[in-house]
């Protein structure tokens, strides 16, 4: 009986847990392809090579329109860059500082502690430069969409000829992964868009996968340590549960 009750309780928890992703499903005919992610599962980790390549794709392809306002140069240490490399990367950017002693704002090369500059000063400028569409900030995009990693991967690769019955207005593009299938972002990746220095394949799939890897890290930079602590915590608590149960049986033996 007791086991039945416990099973019922666990089933309730599971039912509740399973019922929620249903809510996240959007409208429209959306097709997602599942990528292979090193960060999936309880032992998931971020592939540093993929993240560095993804960062390169972001810089050379996406950063023209999309900012990453929560990422500072110092965070790039997670990608495997050392201090000197981070300083060098930061120095390639200019950021506004000030006011100086005369009360003037001035531009200076970025330092590791600075946040990465965004391409537009504000949303209005962003819209004015993009046909009225607002390119979203990418710092959290992998968590701000249902099935984030697969979604981004599919979206980048989802550009296609529109079916005959779908009319694509000017300035819009057909994308099989996007809700409603009409997206304002032009196809960003065609393959060989960037030159990888490590010999990794720069096919559309390779680039999309690397970029997704980088964006997943940006959205959830503490994932590795979270899962590492998680494995230890679950191990410890499993032992604790078993010990508690055995102790309980022993204490209750005299009652039954």
């Amino acid at each position, binding site marked *: *009986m*007791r086991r039945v*009750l*416990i099973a019922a*309780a666990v089933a*309730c*928890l599971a*039912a*509740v*847990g399973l*019922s*929620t*992703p*249903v*809510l*996240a499903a*959007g*409208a429209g005919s959306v097709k997602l392809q599942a990528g292979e992610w090193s960060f999936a599962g*309880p032992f998931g980790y971020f592939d540093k090579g993929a993240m560095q390549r993804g960062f390169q794709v972001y810089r050379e392809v996406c950063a023209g329109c999309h900012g990453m306002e*929560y990422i500072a140069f110092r*965070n790039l240490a997670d990608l495997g860059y050392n201090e000197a490399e981070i300083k060098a990367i930061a120095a390639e950017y200019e950021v506004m500082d000030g006011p100086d002693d005369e009360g003037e704002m001035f531009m200076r090369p970025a330092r590791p502690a600075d946040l990465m500059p965004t391409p537009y000063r504000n949303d209005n400028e962003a819209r004015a430069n993009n046909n009225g569409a607002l390119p*979203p900030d990418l*710092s*959290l995009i992998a*968590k*701000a*969409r*249902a099935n*984030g990693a697969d979604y981004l991967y599919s979206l980048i690769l989802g550009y296609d000829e529109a079916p005959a019955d779908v009319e694509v207005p000017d300035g819009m593009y057909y994308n099989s992964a996007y*809700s409603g299938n009409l997206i304002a972002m032009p196809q960003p990746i065609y393959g060989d868009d960037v030159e990888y220095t490590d010999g990794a394949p720069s096919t559309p799939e390779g680039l999309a996968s690397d970029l997704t890897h980088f964006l997943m890290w940006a*959205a959830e*930079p*503490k994932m590795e340590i*979270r*899962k590492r*602590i*998680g*494995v230890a*915590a*679950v191990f410890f*608590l*499993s032992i*604790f*549960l078993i010990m*508690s*149960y055995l*102790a*309980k049986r022993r*204490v*209750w033996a005299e*009652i*039954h």
Partner: protein
Amino acid sequence: MAAEKFSNPVVRWVDHRLPIFSMLDHEKYDYPVPKNLNYFWNFGVLAGMALVIMIVTGIVLAMNYTAHVDHAFSSVERIMRDVNHGWLIRYIHMNTASFFFIVVYIHIFRGLYYGSYKAPRELLWMLGVVIFLLMMATAFMGYVLPWGQMSFWGATVITNLFSAIPFVGESIVTFLWGGFSVDNPTLNRFFSLHYLMPFVIAGVVVLHIIALHRFGSNNPIGIDAKGPQDTISFHPYYTIKDMVGVAMFLLLLAVAVFFFPNAMGHPDNYIPANPMQTPAHIVPEWYFLPFYAILRAVPDKLGGVLLMFAAIFVLFVLPWLDRSPVRSARFRPMFRIFFWLLFIDCIALGYLGGKPAEGIYVLLSRIATGWYFLHFLVLLPMLSIFETTKPLPKSISEPVLATAKGVA
């Protein structure tokens, strides 16, 4: 006399002047608990633990959070990225909120199944419903604080419900908002109240426990303990049994926090609040979905709001709707069937609350809502009259010993 129980002279000295040790001792050893409680009686302790976890993590989060529309979202991101183990504190807070509701829902259904709301425990039950209401208010305001899209639009939808009240509705909404839309004053007062409410809950929990200890726990058989042979001391028997539940709770919580921290949240809440852009589907947190389904089942706004509140109010009067003298569903064959139908009905309402209010979902929501009220307002009073209950055992010890032999 009490002080002589303790061998430690310091404890004895303190206890003589401030008898807290005697009180604890009294609760631990002298408080009689039925010997046949099953694991469903763990959930009160688990709810209490969830409250403590929420308060502790919440206080730490408040140290790093900024309640301002321009900074709330980024201050949460700062917690997630730069505050030492801030991600852990926040994920524990987020997921324990969901677990708190899971635990409390099981606690409530346990009470329903075993008739724990019946005399003489009516006030104990009603205080529990008060705690549930306070929890819902607290959780709602807490969800607004990260100031993501669902925070903002959830707050807009829910506060707007009050505008359905005739004559004064609009004024009440303006009063709740502190302005003419959900804005900075709203966020500020929600933060203030979100910090206050858990301590109000803790206060009502104390009353809940005082009421509990007046007559002691109900039990799976639902008959009163007849004497010392039916009861055991809380310590060590139920402390150790509760520890098993606590370990299971923490294990499942750890799995959620460390491996699925966002599974019970909504991705849209990682998009900063934007008053100019409405999300495709505004859905509340999962634990509100059954009530959300009831709200939307009625075509009239005021009617929906009234029915939603009635769904909770009906729990207040439950002890007087179910007049059957037999508490436990074990001895009520008809009631048991209807209990499980109600359980399925509530799960169905939760599912429907997460679906768009269109097509077949509307009809199903109405049927499920109708069944919910039918159960409490018609079926329970009728069952109290017409149901033939099974004979009750003479005492708790009798069936306890019987099962013990049966198992052996």
